[in-house]
């Protein structure tokens, strides 16, 4: 227990209302009244939309309002019933109730959708179809192709990391105008991926007039088509993505470099270590924790990669640059089948959770074995 509550506990009786039993009763009454309101709203609207009753609202919005009222009542009753303890709970409750409403409910609801054939543009509505979506998913070559691409995109993070480390070392060197360079290097991170798709993907890399294509011709590449063959297209997408996301890794690593104790580097210099030696023996091992944080965060973001692909290649040529997200996006846009799309997404989510759990476990074991950390 932290020391703060023990101090406040002594002040509590002074501030508490004279009649704790009444506060208890009010708090409990408030909670149950709000719960009843919420349940009534759900019940009325549920029956109405199922066609069983005549009385109801035009949409489910009133139920949302009822949830908001319920949340406020929960917070208020906590304070009334538990005093100081309730005031402490009040800090974390709003975020908790918000996240529960916006994440947990839709994700569970998503599971319900995933096992149904539901085309939003058709009139038949939702039809439960068991594991049909799952079987279709297993036999969907484009989905697994997108999954394979994700492996490549995730591996590309290591390349981005290497470049970012180099840039961080440059920025950490004794240079003039460090702030200018730092801002310039950080700028791509602030730009919208959609804008970047046009700026680089559709105009700099444009086949006829794009400066990059013309530069490539100058170097002897006769037909610089950046998005025509699978591997070149993948490399181009990775280049675009790297341009946006290298600054993120770089800033993390730069912070790590600046936090490193200076005297160790000086001691190494006095001992006659070359720059190369002191990097591999001192800088790199000391930077391992920051590096792991940066790489794991980047992988998490990389698994969501979609904007650039959707707007530059739309997955082409032949699905070579598809990410899982962009594939599901097109799957929905073309066929508007939310059931199948949700199944793909939920399965991807499960894979991500397994992958990240294994990855973190491996990293933990590996970091423990490492002698310097």
């Amino acid at each position, binding site marked *: 227990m*932290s*020391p703060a*509550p023990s*101090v*406040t506990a002594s002040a509590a009786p002074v*501030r508490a209302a004279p009649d704790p039993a009444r506060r208890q009763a009010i708090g409990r009454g408030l909670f149950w009244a709000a719960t009843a309101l919420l349940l009534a709203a759900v019940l009325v609207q549920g029956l109405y939309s199922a066609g069983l009753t005549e009385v109801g609202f035009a949409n489910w919005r009133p*139920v*949302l309002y009822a949830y908001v009222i319920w949340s406020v009542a929960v917070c208020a009753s906590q304070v009334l019933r538990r005093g*100081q303890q309730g*005031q*402490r*709970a009040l*800090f974390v409750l*709003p*975020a908790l109730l*918000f*996240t529960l409403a916006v*994440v947990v409910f*839709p*994700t569970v609801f*998503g599971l319900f*959708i995933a096992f149904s054939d539901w085309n*939003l543009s058709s009139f038949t509505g939702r039809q439960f179809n068991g594991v049909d979506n799952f079987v279709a998913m297993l036999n969907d070559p484009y989905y697994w192709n997108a999954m394979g691409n994700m492996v490549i995109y995730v591996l590309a993070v290591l390349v981005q990391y290497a470049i970012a480390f180099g840039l961080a070392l440059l920025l950490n*060197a004794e*240079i003039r105008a460090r702030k200018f360079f730092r801002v*310039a290097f950080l*700028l791509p991170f*602030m*730009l*919208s*991926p959609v*804008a970047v798709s*046009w*700026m680089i993907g*559709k*105009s*700099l890399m444009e086949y*006829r007039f794009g*400066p990059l294509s013309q530069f490539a011709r100058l170097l002897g590449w006769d037909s610089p088509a950046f998005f025509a063959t699978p591997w070149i297209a993948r490399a181009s997408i990775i280049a675009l993505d790297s*341009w946006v996301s290298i600054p993120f890794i770089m*800033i*993390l690593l730069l*912070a790590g470099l600046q*936090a490193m104790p200076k005297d160790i580097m000086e001691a190494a210099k006095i001992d006659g270590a070359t720059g190369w030696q002191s990097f591999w023996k001192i800088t790199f091992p000391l930077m391992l*924790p920051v590096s792991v944080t940066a790489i794991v965060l980047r992988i*998490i973001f990389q*698994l969501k990669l*979609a*904007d650039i692909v*959707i*707007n530059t290649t739309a997955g082409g040529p032949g699905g070579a640059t598809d990410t*899982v*997200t962009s594939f599901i*996006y097109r799957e*929905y846009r073309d066929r508007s089948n*939310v059931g199948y799309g*949700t199944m793909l*997404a939920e399965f*991807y989510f499960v894979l*991500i959770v397994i992958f990240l759990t294994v990855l973190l476990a491996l990293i933990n074991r590996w970091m423990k074995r490492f002698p310097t950390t």
Partner: protein
Amino acid sequence: MATSLPNQNISARKRPSRQAWGRVIVYALLLFWTFVSLFPVYWTVTTSFKVAADVTQGHLIPWVDFTPQWRGWRSLGLSPETIGQTSTVRDEFLKRFQNSVVISVGASLLAVALGSLAAYGLSRFQYRFGKLGNRDLAFFFLSQLILPPVVLAMPFLVLYRELALLDTRIGIILLYTLTVLPIVIWIMRDQFQSIPIELEEAAFIDGASIWGAFFRIILPIALPGMVAAFILSLVLCWNEYFFAALLTSTNANTLPVMLASQTGSQGVNWWSMAALATAAILPLAIVGILLERYLIKGLTAGAVK
């Protein structure tokens, strides 16, 4: 000295030239990457002032190999001649711009408010919700970062249709708040943990309540962290495309959606695309450059111990 330590002498004589070369390489690399980072932006901004011939002939430097014209900006209705006239494109653009501002500022404010409170609670008090303790709660919040947007996208499509929140600003604000909330909690927890607990203890002795101490003592100290979280959220929300593309159609769509819809159509000219892209990235780029300090603070929170 020189005779007693021959090795050091040699290295001392060699060092200046090697160091000079090292410096040249360092600056060459720095300038090269500055070019890589800035050229696409430079290209976009200059292209918005070009005419067709300048684009096809690959002209790059204004006033040297092409004369800047207001072509791109005229098509947006934002050039000096057209600014006074009515323009449907400009109205459209301003509407999207307004949406972007309202949604990203709204979502960032909401996320900073909810996230700061939760982060403060998690860094100061011991919670028990059934079997769940502080560690589980923190993990629950931070793990939302892993959730890929596609998982939520389609349930939200269906839910928002039922809730009549499809294509509304408030619907997008709620969703964006959710996507940046884990980041805000991450930054603010780091921020609150660095504030000594003695400050509150002193306030409690003076008779302050828990919330009084939080608002009067802790919040002013944590303000830089909140600004950092806000700026980072702003950048992420302003640039978000996926949810906006799926959940908005005519009323609430943001600048990235407008930009993407223009990119798709073939007839659109480079200069007007360039003008639109410039207008979409410039406000945030300026905010980011001016408040770069906070952006870096936000990005590096909790990464270095």
